[in-house]
């Protein structure tokens, strides 16, 4: 449904081709600066590729959750309603409340979004995406700046998205998270797509030296 053909971006991402299909959760793994964020932004259409083409043949919506959530200076509920309104959905109160409930934020619906904690704001970002019922959800290091308990809550919501049939595409450098949430791994190294494999296979038998070194090096912090 999402196809990248010979897509490159400046000197950050070397030309690569890949297809993202509905179903299995895709984790984009790589060290900082490997090009994960750029690849996600190309997929989501926030960046235009220098060369190549990105084609999206899904009929549904895409949504993206960033490493640091950007909340509007209004209530949590109003933040979700804003997303719904601009997706062409009027009178979305019920839908918005259901989304807040899903991420466990119904009790702070009327609180200003910016005074919520970091973990709550990230869950609110997920609620904003949830309300849109996206066909694919891009997550760019969604828990990189959160503590372990907030991270657990975010991961639970991501699992719920997956269970509800949303395709998950997540960038992370956290191997534990990749194992917990991913079905397949796309491994980037210095702007190149080095390896793509099912999660178990990637960790058990990495085919490239770069991937093996990354798994070995990162494991202590996973």
């Amino acid at each position, binding site marked *: 449904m999402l196809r990248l053909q010979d897509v490159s971006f400046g000197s950050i991402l070397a030309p690569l081709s890949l297809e993202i299909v509905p179903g299995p959760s895709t984790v984009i793994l790589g060290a900082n600066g490997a090009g994960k964020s750029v690849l996600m932004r190309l997929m989501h259409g926030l960046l235009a590729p220098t060369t190549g083409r990105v084609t999206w043949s899904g009929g549904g919506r895409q949504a*993206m959750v960033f490493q640091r959530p950007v909340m*509007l200076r209004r209530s949590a509920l109003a933040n979700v309603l804003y997303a719904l309104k*601009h997706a062409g959905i009027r009178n979305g109160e019920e839908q918005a409340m259901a989304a807040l409930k899903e991420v466990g934020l119904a009790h702070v619906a009327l609180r200003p979004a910016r005074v919520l904690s970091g973990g709550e704001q990230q869950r609110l970002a997920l609620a904003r995406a949830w309300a849109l019922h996206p066909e694919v959800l891009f997550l760019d290091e969604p828990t990189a700046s959160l503590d372990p308990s907030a991270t657990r809550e975010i991961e639970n919501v991501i699992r719920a998205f997956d269970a509800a049939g949303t395709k998950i595409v997540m960038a992370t450098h956290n191997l534990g998270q990749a194992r917990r949430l991913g079905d397949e791994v796309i491994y980037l190294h210095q702007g190149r797509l080095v390896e793509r494999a099912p999660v178990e296979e990637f960790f058990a038998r990495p085919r490239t030296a770069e991937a093996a070194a990354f798994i070995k090096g990162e494991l202590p912090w996973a």
Partner: protein
Amino acid sequence: MTVHTDFPAILLDPGLWQIVALSLQVSLSAVFLAMTIGLPLGAVLAVGRFPGRGAIVVVLNALMGLPPVVVGLAVYLLLSRAGPLGELGLLFTPGAMIFAQTLLILPIAAALCRQAVEDGWREYEEQLRSLGVHGLPAALTVLWDIRFSLVTAVLAGLGRASAEVGAVMIVGGNIDGVTRVMTTAIALETSKGDLPLALGLGVVLIAVVLALNTAAHLVRDAAQRRFG
């Protein structure tokens, strides 16, 4: 206003308070009008990408230093009997003063707003684009979201309006009871040699500006605590 020689006594003069009220009416109206036009203009400049944008930004920044007497002269020519807007009969009325001050403050409103929205835009752009919000709706979203930061632009405009004498003197004429405001009264009393009265008026003017700034500061502080 009757003639006084000592400062505390003028505070009891209703004529003084009439002058203060007119000053506030003119300056606050001008600030309101300039913000209404200038803030959306600045927001669009901050978010939009079109040819000539850089030039407009430079001109706008330069116009922040527009000399009030020049604006006064231009408005005088516009509003004079033979001028293009002469039929409005605005010359030597508070309306003319509001008109001139609006022109003076407009570049300040637009330029400071552009800067504030541009800073906000850096934070919001990706999120808004991801939600499919572009162009004017995106600009207005950011403008509304940084509304507390815009207090600075409002205060800068108000400071400019309440302090200037050149424009209101030329288009208002400093007519006692009609178009006399604090700054023109101070200029007049100084040239008449009534320095204590001029000084007293100056103290009142500064006190009024200080009070408005304090109020704005408190509002902004409370809002930021409330909304984060």
